[in-house]
């Protein structure tokens, strides 16, 4: 896991849990989020996340295909069972009807297609996390 301290006082209470097995994507997104003052907890695999002991983040951003067994959607459901109120953004290079339908049926979940514009993600993060 990698974390970075908040640098922007406006957002210092926003802790983003980021899960993506692509290190290049994960580090760039972490840096951008940190620049915007979020506390980022970034993980490369589900196994590394201490879900039971994790203090509730403000939002979860997770990739769909993570390598290994469990996918991001399944993790999102498990995560939601523990942290009901936390919005989840599922990012994926998969463009399947199945994912679109799943996202539409889960009110706490939004879907963003990779490659994504950071501004879109940031806007969504704020819209979902600070209604």
């Amino acid at each position, binding site marked *: 896991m990698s974390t970075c301290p908040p640098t922007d006082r406006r957002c210092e209470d926003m802790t983003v849990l980021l899960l993506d097995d692509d290190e290049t994507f994960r580090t760039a997104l972490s840096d951008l989020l940190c620049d915007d003052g979020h506390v980022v907890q970034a993980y490369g695999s589900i196994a590394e996340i201490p879900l039971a002991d994790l203090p509730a983040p403000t939002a979860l951003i997770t990739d769909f295909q993570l390598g290994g067994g469990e996918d991001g959607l399944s993790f999102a459901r498990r995560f939601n069972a523990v942290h009901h109120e936390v919005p989840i953004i599922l990012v994926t290079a998969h463009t399947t009807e199945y994912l679109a339908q799943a996202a539409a049926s889960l009110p706490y979940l939004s879907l963003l297609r990779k*490659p994504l514009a950071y501004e879109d993600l940031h806007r969504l993060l704020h819209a979902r996390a600070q209604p």
Partner: protein
Amino acid sequence: MPISKSTSVSDAILALGLQEARWQAVLDSAQDAIISIDQRGTVTLFNHAAEGMFGYRAEEVLGCNLVMLMPAPYRDEHPEYVAHYEQTGAARAIGRIRDVHAVRKSGEVFPIELSVSEARYGKERIYTAILRDVSERARSQAQIHELQQLSRQRERLADIGAITAQVVHDLGNPLAAISMQAQLLVRRLRKGAAASELLSTGQQVLGAIHRLDAIIQELTSFAREQRLELANVDISVLLRSLRDLWLPLARSREIEIVLELPGAGISLRADEHKLSRVVENLVKNAIEAVDRGPGCVTIHAIPIRENVRIAIADSGPGMSPDIDVFGLFETTKPGGTGLGLAIAKQIVVAHGGSIQCESRAPHGTVFYVDLPAHGPPV
């Protein structure tokens, strides 16, 4: 009643009547159409089933030429054909079942099975045809054929769909990484970041481009026909050099690579570069399966009859039996393309060999590559 010399005329007439009635009963109850013609092609018999099949009443056909029941080109050829047969005895329809077409009163042309027999009475010849309407069967066959084609088409489309989705995904991920790094770069440049701060971003972008390129290379390699450049390959030399290549990485993870070779050298007719790619892929997979040692990867080669067997075993956790490891895009590794083993299998098969995987979970996995020693069969 059989008719003999002692039979009286009235008895003979009665017997003939009975015989006629019996034949009529047979003709009328037959499921197939029965039609008789004389030498000139004039219809002399048209049974009940023929009426149903052609839509004519018997009296509309009797005395007319048979060609009224035939579509072109049979209609035009038939008189000539009968004449030719009577002159030469060369029959096309007599004594065999032929698939031809007939025409109904409505003008509808339909497929039939036709068999013709010939009877002679003095100088007269009578040709009797039995016809079976096979339109239903032809329709079902056409439907089955159409469904099979449709199903094949759908399977192909589904395959193309699955492959496209996977390619989109595999290319989309490094592209997303490049995009995110580029967005970070733009922001840092706007803030006037120092060049040293931007170096890592540039390197990350290059790394992701390299990954993209590797995927494209693998896809190209998979799509290309496997042309082999065959030569005599010394397997011991090939396996030793591969072991030396991977040993530093393996040892950095506390994994030992053990080479087990028979005393005598093993020679194989193969494409050295491609074969090397297969074994390298298997060795790399084996190291990744163990991940962190202490562990062991064993490379073993042995001649078995006309074949050479190369086995690569690892001491990893083994694999789930549900995975088709040689399937296109099948992968259990984060960041894996699922092309490596599919390509390996394609190369082995091109050599006339086979590749198998045996999971000994939880005690590792063994891959067996069997190749014909004298090269692929010509």
